[in-house]
């Protein structure tokens, strides 16, 4: 990296999500429910040059380790991403993304007439298909716009 480029500093404790497909970083933050109000220190790189991917996004979150549920949903919008858990500036753990069989409570159903959109005490559940996800209640199949249906609190 040359002196003219901006370097994002290492984090002490937290998570680095690297090799995110270019343009998906903000969706990754949405999945993690990070909008700045929680006070975490967050660094986001968008369209960063990458040897492996030509361009990539990268997200560093200070003071937060991802849960398995969060990792599961990340795998749907950023399947190529790698996740490093950092403790005391060192990589303590590497999490690999595997597509889950189902995702619970994270996506909202695009079908307005689905019971999960009717103010009932029910969490959304989506079965993960080879090329999309499917609501387990109304059976609507969602293929191209999964990230747009992330239910952000």
């Amino acid at each position, binding site marked *: 990296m040359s002196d003219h480029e901006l370097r994002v500093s290492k984090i002490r404790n937290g998570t680095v999500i690297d090799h995110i497909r270019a343009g998906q970083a903000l969706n990754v933050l949405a999945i993690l429910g990070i909008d700045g109000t929680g006070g975490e220190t967050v660094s986001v790189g968008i369209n960063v040059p990458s040897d492996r991917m030509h361009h990539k996004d990268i997200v560093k979150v200070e003071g937060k380790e991802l849960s398995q549920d969060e990792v599961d949903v990340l795998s749907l919008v950023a399947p190529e991403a790698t996740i490093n858990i950092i403790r005391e500036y060192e990589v303590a753990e590497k999490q690999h993304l595997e597509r889950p069989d189902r995702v619970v409570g994270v996506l909202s159903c695009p079908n307005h007439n689905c019971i*999960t959109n009717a103010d009932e005490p029910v969490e959304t559940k989506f079965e993960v298909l080879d090329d999309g996800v499917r609501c387990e209640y109304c059976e609507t199949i969602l293929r191209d716009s999964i990230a747009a249906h992330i239910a952000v609190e």
Partner: protein
Amino acid sequence: MRHDHLITAKQLSREDIEEVLDRAAEIDADPAAFGDRHADTVLGLCFYEPSTRTKMSFETAIKRLGGDSVDMGTVESSSVKKGESLADTARVVAGYADALVLRHPSEGAAKMVGDFVDVPLLNAGDGAGHHPTQTLLDLYTIRENAGLDDLTIGIMGDLKYGRTVHSLAHALTNFDARQHFVSPESLKLPRSVRYDLHESGANVREHTDLDDVLPELDVLYVTRIQRERFPDENEYHAIAGEYGIDLETLEDASDDLTVMHPLPRVDEIASEVDDTEYAAYFEQAHNGVPVRMALLDLMMEGQQ
């Protein structure tokens, strides 16, 4: 029947279906023999949408089995009006009844309620989703008139929103059936149903013109095209006219054709067809009672 709830026709195997239809045939042959089978059974009816046939045939079915029903009444007259959730109402009624019948305008409603109640739940229609008890009486009618194997069936009308169509299409994948779907482009089968039919390897073809397939059909299942699906009144009339049948339409049909309709019909089938050998739709509606008796009998039996 090994199922606690009947939510969708997809959960029914060929054996499940034949068990219900065989029991329905026994009931049809000797209804009195079943008259006190479920003397202490109370059926809870929760209908959040209007219904004539489904609701009345369930009420008749439980009464002919010796039991009784309690009815939530209309949405306007119930605590739903006060803002009570479906999940709460269903749990309360489940405490009064030995089994529940639910019709609701939202897709997935029955699936959700099934997770909240511990008495058998029968889905009597969830939005544009499923209507499996209608499918069982449809299959009974098909079996009586045309047989369920080596069947060529045309399913015509509103295939997008028609829950009877979705359930019937799923159930027919258990049999040796060639399914021809006839509809305007705008009312073709939804992606989720096509996906399931494809996954099950069903023999399916789609058409926009009934003439392409009518002569080879054993059964023509006609459904209502609903006015509210079209923003434009003229467009509705044009489409509805194109997907209706009368004696002239049926000139090219096989003499053995069976014409079915889940009812209510509006203009889809001209009344001149009613008195022909083709018409099976009133018989189909009557079959709602023995088939629902059979289903209740088997599901309650499974609880004992």
